[in-house]
């Protein structure tokens, strides 16, 4: 077919969960697809595909981003954090532990997005109010829990961090 441009490849180097990764990606590829398909990090999910639901939330340089709508090339020279980099099964991040303790996980589909959004909030505001948490989670949808336990978990984690070593 005439006129179809050759996808231009870009070399990008990014840090994913603390590890440097060098990739060649076409400019039109989305970060979510690079994470899931190239790097086998399945924590971020494609759900609404339009930045509404938050299931694809990852942190780029500490800022929450919808990986479904973020060009991979924009992550060049940046640090990306996915849920896989938050903690390990043997060493859960305090947020993950709080989610477990408070029953804030049911089907788990929204969980990675919730955790990373919460981390971004607590990194900036270590003692948020409930209103702060609700405001910040506005873009993360959950079909299972009714949000109560997620909010409780985040507030408990924030309160617990005041006494953590």
């Amino acid at each position: 077919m005439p006129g179809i441009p050759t996808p231009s490849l870009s070399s990008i180097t990014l840090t994913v969960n603390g590890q440097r990764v060098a990739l060649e990606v076409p400019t039109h590829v989305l970060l979510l697809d690079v994470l899931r398909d190239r790097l086998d990090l399945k924590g971020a999910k494609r759900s609404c595909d339009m930045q509404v639901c938050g299931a694809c939330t990852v942190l780029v340089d500490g800022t929450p981003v919808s990986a479904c709508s973020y060009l991979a090339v924009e992550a060049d020279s940046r640090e990306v954090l996915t849920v896989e980099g938050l903690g390990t099964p043997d060493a859960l991040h305090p947020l993950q532990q709080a989610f477990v303790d408070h029953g804030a996980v049911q089907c788990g589909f929204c969980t990675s997005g919730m955790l990373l959004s919460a981390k971004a909030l607590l990194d900036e505001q270590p003692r948020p109010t409930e209103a702060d948490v609700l405001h910040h989670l506005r873009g993360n949808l959950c079909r299972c829990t009714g949000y109560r336990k997620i909010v409780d978990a985040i507030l408990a984690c924030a309160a617990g961090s005041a006494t953590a070593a």
Partner: protein
Amino acid sequence: MLRPFALYRPTTLPEIAALLRKYGDEAALYAGGTELLLLMKEGLVRPRVLVDLKRVAGLGELAASDGAVNIGATVQHRTVERSVVVGAHCPLVAGVARHVANARVRAAGTVGGNLAFADPHSDLATLFLVFDARVSLWSGDGEREVPLDEFVRGPYETVRRDDEVLTAVRLRPAASGGAGAYLKFGVYERPTLGVAVVLVLDAQRRRVSEARLALGCIGPRPQRLSHLEQRLRGMLVDELAAGRADLTGSGMDAISAATDLHGSADYKLEMAQVFTRRALRVAAARATHQVIDARYPYTVVV
């Protein structure tokens, strides 16, 4: 999945002009991509070239001068939300920026992109009307400044020519002593109704000396309610704070509203009156330092 495209990242406006000249309607301007990428995913627009504005110096500046606040086109909502300059000169703008969409969209989406897309449900396009906003448009042939009121022509339609770049928007906050409010009502991702109000009181602080009101989301474009603004002049601010604004004869029933997923035209017109009254109440209470309970269902009060 997006269809393939070439991405250019110029660092100057003349470079952008050259790219737009070369590629015409095959090119799309790109900053946060919060609307563009969605349209591209749907196949509704299929640019083969994206021109990234984020590396052009000057487009990302936010500064105040001569009482006006200049917001560069590539400034993100999140930056506006946290800006000390905005907080000092027009805190209402920072407050509304805090409630645009969600945290991820606020981190990526830009003020310029929002205005240029002209979504009829835009909070900023409604709010900026009460700040007498003026939009700067740059092209290879020169620059022009257009009042926001004239810039937005209709749903998704602006006067920006294809060879022009929206470079900045300038806000002019009301004289000191003004109190404002923005009420946003709705249950969907985009608001069903937005009302912005700024009130300036007289020297005795008893009556309204100047009112600015804008209504958004329900019509094809946000609009200033100039008839109502005139009627409000001279009104007792305590009447407004008590929620007793008399809107009859203010031209509010002549506002254009269309029936759609957000509700019937009748419903929207009625809600426009309800929320205008509420917005006036909030602004009037603030102007006189009264504490009121302004919580309404499905409403964000800024």
